């Protein structure tokens, strides 16, 4: 349709969109490209090589990064699982629990971690652990992650659940299902895409977290972001670019899965 008749489109908006994408991708692209640099210096290009990827796995820092990766992934998996379970229960209570006094405060509490600036939450958690005398370590990171992952798991689940009319459960109960059967046979399968995206979201957020982890981590326990931060503080090194590129790849895979899962309907 010509610009003349199409009242929706504005000339120039497309160019801005392209600009926007360039801005978003340029830094990532540059890092990806340089991760394949054969040179030990990030400033010189010496041709393509997988050297730094090898370095990540066998190089001098490999042990550190491996430990960090194991921590990161185990924390992310446990935290995302716990947060998703908690969020699913909470969403059921909030979306399907009728009207009651605790509803709004509960919603507020659940979304609190995304409303409080991360640095504040980090400081608060640090002070809290300190004041109650928790020794910082793996567990402190884990509980902090479970807590702040909850809203990220919650939001897609709630959104999905709100999109499911309660007539489905009513229909199930009308057809002699108990509440528990209606939940398991009808609501849960219908919610599944929301639950999966909630889990993936929580997983990525946990995997991604730097600030809070940095405040609550214990001695010698690193996650990938804190390990990377520790390294890049001393300058960007090619092995970091390789790790970043791998994480980038992982994120893309995860989002892609989440994208397709949230789009798939188990209804077709």
């Amino acid at each position, binding site marked *: 349709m010509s610009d003349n008749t199409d009242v929706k489109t504005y000339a120039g908006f497309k160019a801005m969109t392209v600009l926007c994408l360039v801005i978003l991708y340029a830094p990532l692209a540059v890092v990806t490209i340089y991760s394949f640099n054969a040179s030990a210096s990030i400033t010189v290009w010496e041709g393509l090589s997988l050297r730094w990827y090898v370095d990540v796995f066998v190089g001098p820092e490999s042990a550190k990064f491996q430990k960090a990766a194991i921590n990161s992934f185990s924390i992310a998996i446990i935290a995302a699982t716990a947060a998703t379970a908690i969020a699913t229960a909470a969403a059921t209570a909030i979306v399907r629990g009728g009207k009651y006094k605790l509803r709004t405060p509960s919603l507020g509490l659940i979304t609190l971690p995304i409303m409080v600036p991360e640095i504040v939450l980090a400081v608060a958690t640090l002070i809290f652990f300190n004041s109650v005398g928790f020794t910082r370590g793996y567990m402190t990171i884990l509980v902090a992650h479970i807590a702040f992952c909850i809203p990220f798991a919650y939001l897609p689940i709630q959104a999905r659940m709100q999109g499911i*009319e309660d007539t489905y459960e*009513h229909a199930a109960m*009308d057809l002699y299902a108990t509440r528990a059967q209606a939940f398991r046979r009808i609501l849960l399968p219908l919610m599944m895409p929301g639950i999966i995206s909630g889990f993936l979201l929580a997983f990525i957020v946990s995997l991604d977290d730097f600030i809070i982890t940095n405040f609550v981590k214990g001695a010698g326990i690193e996650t990938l972001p804190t390990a990377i931060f520790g390294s890049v503080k001393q300058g960007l090194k090619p092995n970091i670019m390789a790790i970043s590129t791998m994480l980038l790849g992982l994120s893309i895979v995860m989002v892609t899965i989440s994208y397709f899962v949230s789009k798939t309907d188990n209804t077709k």
Partner: protein
Amino acid sequence: MQDTAEIAVDVRGAVKRYGSFTALQKISLGIRDNEFFTLLGPSGCGKTTLLRMIAGFEDVTEGGIFLFGDEIAKLAPNQRPVNTVFQNYALFPHMTILDNVGFGLEMKGASRSDARKRAGEMLELVQLTQFAHRKPAQLSGGQQQRVALARALAPSPKVLLLDEPLSALDLKLRKAMQIELKHIQRETGITFIFVTHDQEEALTMSDRIAVMSAGELQQLGAPRDIYEHPRNMFVADFIGDTNLLEVSVDKITDGRALCSIGGANTLSCMAVDGVDVGAKVHLSVRPERLTLSDSALSPESLPGKVVENIFIGTDINTIIDLDDGPQFTIRTSNSDRGNKRIIDIGSPAFVNMEAGAARLLVD
């Protein structure tokens, strides 16, 4: 249908309040076994609320609901021998058609294979056997409607509740489904409680109709009864087109009331209880009960002038201004017989009324 027929659902003084808002005000009605019963009323009048109370999705605030004599208001939805066809079908989107239809049986304890077998039979009934393994989203609206019906019928409920099941369908399909539904009801003998806000649908399909408005039962009766003898203004106006005239009752003799309708015009009609001489009330005359003529056919013929002839296909609606009186709409069949009676716009004409066509309304 006799009055002695067994009562399937007995609603006794049921009240429903949402907070301070009263959605249903002391409704009492008995729905007979095997009947096609319709709840008819404008949007928001409480039809769905009543249906949901019967199904068990809403508590009864006051009063009780009895199913074949047993109070059911305290039973959970999954314990009532009542199934529902939901307005938007509420087919389980992640299950095949077959599993949807078998769901109720399975929940009642049938094995999956038995459930499927019976579900297959139900699909035959609604002629959808070849779609058994599709998901609901792959069916058209009308097909989904039939699946919803099959699903609700499969556990052989004693009463079937249908909440505006046809409102999402287009005209042609709706008419076809009306016939099919009526047919299935007759065949299975299950009591149908059918909700609609479409008066023509209600008139066509029902054995009896309960007309509701603002949470109150306005009139209960057979379609013809309700159409021809509306009890009050709401019913007269809501069901079909009518000429609603403000009249004052001049004289009552021999059970007939003489009403003046403006100017020198008078009409006589059957007197009704509660309307005395001097009362200012409304009178309803259906347009199809009026005829036009170019000369007075009787002393009661009313003189006027044709304002407009509106062609509506099957009929022609003529608008006529009585001399010094109100406006009348007269419906004349668009057929040879009818067309002979049509009078040109601007010409003088007389309005003639069939005996018994005018009806005084109590409120």
